[in-house]
């Protein structure tokens, strides 16, 4: 792997709420290099979106963030607001899940893309507008010159997401964080948007952090995968490590829950039994233990001792946090 542009070490995010301290992210590490794609997968509430917001410094004031977030080796945590503001949208940009609510309904899309540019470049409004049109054209908005004056509600879902991507890429960022960029879209449009992200990544050499729960998308575009569960890393490795050599029962469960066209359909979709723990409710043992089908193979340890990431066979840094040392064969 090339020299990473974004590195996250031992990231913890704790929210202070009326009910006490809630650890949403409990020590995760990841890194992504220029031109590469890291996928962070997990269920809702696993801490994937909170992690990305922490990297952007966009968490509310009741969140405490510790650990290291390094952009080209520069620590971002604890940076004064003004310094961080210069990085946001310029070096690290973000694409959101729901483009309709992510765009300001009161301003034309051209204005919004131009604003992103003007916030980081000292240029005239006219020049910024030209740059916005150029960018809208690049992400595949037909008739960009005219459409730049349209408002978000006048676009289809897919076109809106293209606008959001144009806005994110207008400053040629080093890192792009896409938080479930295709979840709100039709399946056919999803493929177009993923292809667009893939294209711009290839063109600009952007490092992409893709937050998703769509393993089909992940298999197609990711280089590395981080599987999160209850605010912690359950497993990480290259995309082939995860899809062919998954070692964590949770990762296996996710893969098993994915409908496939190449095997005969089952009468019902496979699910992982139970629900994810609420943050902070698991204090000892493995957070996945209550839902795990393999606990009986290990025993007491799953309840008393929290598993750490340990190396597994694979292409590189394949690691899983499971007491079951070998790969569970039962499901396969």
């Amino acid at each position, binding site marked *: 792997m090339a020299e990473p542009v974004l590195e996250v070490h031992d990231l913890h995010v704790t929210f202070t709420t009326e009910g006490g301290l809630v650890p949403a992210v409990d020590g995760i590490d990841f890194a992504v290099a220029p031109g590469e794609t890291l996928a962070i997968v997990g269920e809702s509430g696993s801490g994937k979106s909170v992690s990305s917001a922490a990297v*952007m410094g*966009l968490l509310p004031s009741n969140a405490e963030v510790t650990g290291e977030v390094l952009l080209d080796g520069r620590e971002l945590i604890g940076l004064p*607001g*003004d310094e961080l*503001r*210069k*990085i*946001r*949208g*310029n070096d690290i*940009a*973000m694409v*959101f899940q*729901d483009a309709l*609510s*992510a*765009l*300001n*309904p*009161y*301003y*034309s899309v051209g204005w919004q893309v131009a*604003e*992103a540019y003007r*916030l*980081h470049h000292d240029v005239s409004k006219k020049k910024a507008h030209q740059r916005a049109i150029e960018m809208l054209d690049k992400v595949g908005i037909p008739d960009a010159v005219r459409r730049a004056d*349209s*408002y978000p*509600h*006048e676009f289809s879902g897919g076109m809106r997401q293209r606008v*959001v991507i144009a*806005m994110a890429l207008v400053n040629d960022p080093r890192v792009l964080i896409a938080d479930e960029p295709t979840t709100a879209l039709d399946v056919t449009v999803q493929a177009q948007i993923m292809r667009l992200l893939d294209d711009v990544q290839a063109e600009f050499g952007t490092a992409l952090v893709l937050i998703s729960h769509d393993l089909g998308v992940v298999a197609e575009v990711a280089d590395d995968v981080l599987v999160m569960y209850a605010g912690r890393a359950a497993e990480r490795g290259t995309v082939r490590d995860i899809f062919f050599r998954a070692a964590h029962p949770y990762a296996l469960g996710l893969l098993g829950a994915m409908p496939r066209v190449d095997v005969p359909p089952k009468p019902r979709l496979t699910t992982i039994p139970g629900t994810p723990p609420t943050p902070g409710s698991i204090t000892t043992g493995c957070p996945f233990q209550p839902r795990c089908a393999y606990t009986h193979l290990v025993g007491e340890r799953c309840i008393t001792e929290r598993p750490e990431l340990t190396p597994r066979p694979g292409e590189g840094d394949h690691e899983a946090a499971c007491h079951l040392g070998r790969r569970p064969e039962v499901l396969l």
Partner: protein
Amino acid sequence: MPDLAWFVIRRLFGALLVMLALSLAVYLVFYAIPADPARLACGKPCTPDRLEQARHFMQLDQSTLQQYLSFLKGVFAGRTFGDGTAAVHCNAPCFGYSFPLARPVTTLILDRLPVTASIALGAAVLWLLLGVSLGVIAALNRGRILDRLAIGVALVGVSTPSFLLGLLAILVFGFWLNMVPVNGYVPFTESPVDWAWHLITPWIVLAILQAASYIRLTRSQMLEELNLDYITTARAKGAGELRVVLTHGLRGVLVPVVTLFGLDLGGLLGGAILTEKVFSMQGLGDLLITAVGSLDVAVVVGVTLFSAFLIILANLVVDIVHGLLDPRVSHG
């Protein structure tokens, strides 16, 4: 823009129908009151003969419907009361004739309007600025001392009667500190400085009273607005907090504020009754109260209809401003 013109024409036509229905209702209500304006005009002692004469002259001997139709005719073509040398003309648009004041109602309203408009418009500008800025400050400092302070001001403002605050202001600033004139009105055309100087106390009093609802509306609206996704987008683009609030947040806040403002201003232009009384200013409110006291039904009907017209006009203006503020309205 032709869209806008068409919209205005349609609305004006609707307004005309509303005014027509309203004038009938107002007419019937005020002419149904068991009091006889002719008896007042007739003086004492009043012989049955003279009373009948006065009735006929004031056209009160006609049926109510006939009187209403004469009133409508007067609006478009003018009216004449009596005949010969004693005839009284009321030119179109004639909204009735005040026999106690011996003037057409239209003239009376137009004479008094500058006073009321001066009070209302000046106060409106003040309370809008005061209310919105305090509301924004309160929202940004939610739960802290500035927020509590702004809410406290709002609570005092909303629960203080205008005559109390007005009299207190006159007492303190007019008499004790001798800073401002205690009453009277100087036309703007005579001396703009004296005009403003005489109006400053009523402006401030009205502004404090009215700003209360604007503080609370702006605060709650801004708090809601700041939780929206596009605010996060603005931060993710690298916008500073001031820009986030003023450029991205305020626009959505202004939509309901404009609605409230239009109706408040429209209502106030129809006569700030208590304020005018307290500050001894002869505006529309004063005209109305005096007319009620002297059973001058023509004036009461005229001023009531004029106030209603202002409210309808305010609604129309609010709708147009909505279109300008929110592209989802104008670019439907």
